[in-house]
């Protein structure tokens, strides 16, 4: 696997201390319920550079979603720290989570409104984002009138709206009042966003996400249990153990984008990672 280099978490950062990372997790541990119960995630150190695409990979019980919730600020770590730099992170789920009482366009406009984008600019940005996910004609469509793949694309557009990715043209305005974050691209946290889609649609959405990231600066933390998806998309794949979630190993994926999920490079690295993942899973059977 000449394209892949194994890294340790400690050496993951590319630049020096001058530039803050987009995400920095230090000794992160989360325990639910009484203190003393087994932690869900245990001692995670992870740094994500601005503009990087990191895939978190793991079997059930590795605390992937908890980890994203902590980064998003929805949950607090039991010990350790989680810092993010740049605008408020946007979170995208496996379910589209669009509001069925609003049209596709209004869903995006609501995200903009809650971020403080003034009304006259909302419709324009929403239309631009729908164009970006190639749903220019769907602005007035209700959620139930869209297919699963289209819903997930609207959800992606909403997440982009929320993250501030639409402000690229006029970021000087500092729509959300955090204009000082100029250097940091928006942070998108994705929690198995394509897991519920059929293989054909998922494949197309991989291409779409790659295309959008080539067009706009974006930091992505992408959680998945699909090894090939992780290798198809990520610049770095982080394998987590289960119960508790710890970082087992990391791979840097140096294949050029856009990759194809069927390509030999993706397949080779996927094989290596799958072997390691299975080894981690087997460990639980032996206990």
């Amino acid at each position, binding site marked *: 696997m000449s394209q892949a280099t194994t890294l340790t978490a400690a050496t993951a950062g590319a630049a020096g201390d001058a530039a803050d990372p987009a995400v920095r997790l230090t000794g992160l541990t989360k325990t639910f319920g009484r203190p003393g119960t087994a932690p869900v995630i245990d001692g995670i150190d992870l740094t994500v550079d601005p503009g990087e695409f990191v895939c978190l990979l793991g079997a059930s019980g590795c605390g992937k979603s908890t980890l994203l919730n902590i980064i*998003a600020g*929805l949950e607090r770590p039991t010990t350790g720290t989680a810092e993010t730099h740049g605008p*408020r992170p*946007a*979170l995208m*789920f496996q*379910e589209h*989570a*669009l*509001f*069925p*009482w*609003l049209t596709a366009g209004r869903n995006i406009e*609501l*995200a903009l409104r*809650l*971020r403080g984008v003034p009304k006259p600019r909302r419709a324009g940005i929403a239309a631009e984002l729908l164009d970006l996910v*190639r*749903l220019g004609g769907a602005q007035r469509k*209700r*959620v*139930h*009138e*869209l*297919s*699963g*793949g*289209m819903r997930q694309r609207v959800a992606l557009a*909403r997440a982009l709206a*929320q993250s501030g990715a639409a402000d690229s043209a006029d970021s000087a305005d500092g729509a959300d009042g955090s204009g000082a974050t100029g250097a940091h691209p928006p942070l998108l946290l994705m929690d198995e966003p394509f897991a519920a889609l059929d293989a*054909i*649609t998922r494949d*197309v959405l991989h*291409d*779409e996400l790659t*295309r959008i990231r080539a067009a706009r600066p974006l930091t992505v933390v992408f959680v998945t249990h699909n090894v090939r998806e992780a290798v198809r998309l990520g610049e770095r794949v982080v394998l987590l153990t289960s119960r508790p979630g710890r970082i087992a190993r990391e791979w840097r994926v140096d294949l050029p984008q*856009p990759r*194809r999920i*069927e*390509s030999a490079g993706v397949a080779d690295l996927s094989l290596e990672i799958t072997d390691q993942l299975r080894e981690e899973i087997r460990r639980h059977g032996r206990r």
Partner: protein
Amino acid sequence: MAAADPTETGETTGVTGTAVAGTATPDHDDAGLEAGLDALETPRRERPSLLTVARTKVLPPVVAVVLVLLVWQLVAAAHIKPSYALPGPIAVWHAFLHQWYLGTVGGIVGTSLGRGALGFLLSVVLGTPLGLVVARVRFVRTAIGPILSGLQALPSVAWVPAAIIWFGLSNATIYAVILLGAVPSIANGLVAGVEQIPPIHLRAGRVLGATGLRGIRHVLLPAALPGYLAGLKQGWAFAWRSLMAAELITTSPDLGLGLGQFLDQGRELSDMPMVLCAIVLILVVGVGIELLVFTPLTRRVLTSRGL
């Protein structure tokens, strides 16, 4: 058709070609692929024709009403009971026409409808914040949630004697009984509506930054709307029922003549056609408001959400 359309064949080979080569797909083909997928997967829904709607939605209730009237007329014609005790629908119709020519029907229905509407609106104003607090504040919910549900089971006519002692034979008595009947229904409807919200919507709202009052306005209330509307519908039924109970007992020359008082007059005169006419009017007004106001409103909300 034009199978040899140059652009069409060109594009098809383009897609096949890249797939074989295994390299990245050019951008414009990508867009075509996505558009094709969208076209294939978009759910298609066909509107039923007006005739189908008439046959499946309108015909059955009309048949049922005609049947009921027919059986009623037959039973009345069989003289099982004397005709002053069980008049047929035709006699009741004549009683209605008699009132109509006296010019009293509009006033009677108007009085009751006005009281019902005002009482219902007051109930909405009180029941909505109450429901919101019960749904959102756990302590309040454990404290008064069961009481609120229990109040729904209490027939509101039971409040009439108490209300008369408090407020005398006045409009206040009537409104108090309506409120005690309708507020619990409306509050409970909102509580149920909030309970039915898929957790993912609340989570999405939090992620988008809709917290506190903004969360209630932009996520909680619109998401709970179907359950809330069901509560409003039931609230109206309870308000109307309570109003009739109150009017039936709270009769006084100082109070305007409503349907309940009209019904009571019929009883005093032992005028069975008048009594039945009042009953039918109460039924028609109550159901009519439901069909004209709440059913279309509920349907609009549900269809716009694809439910």
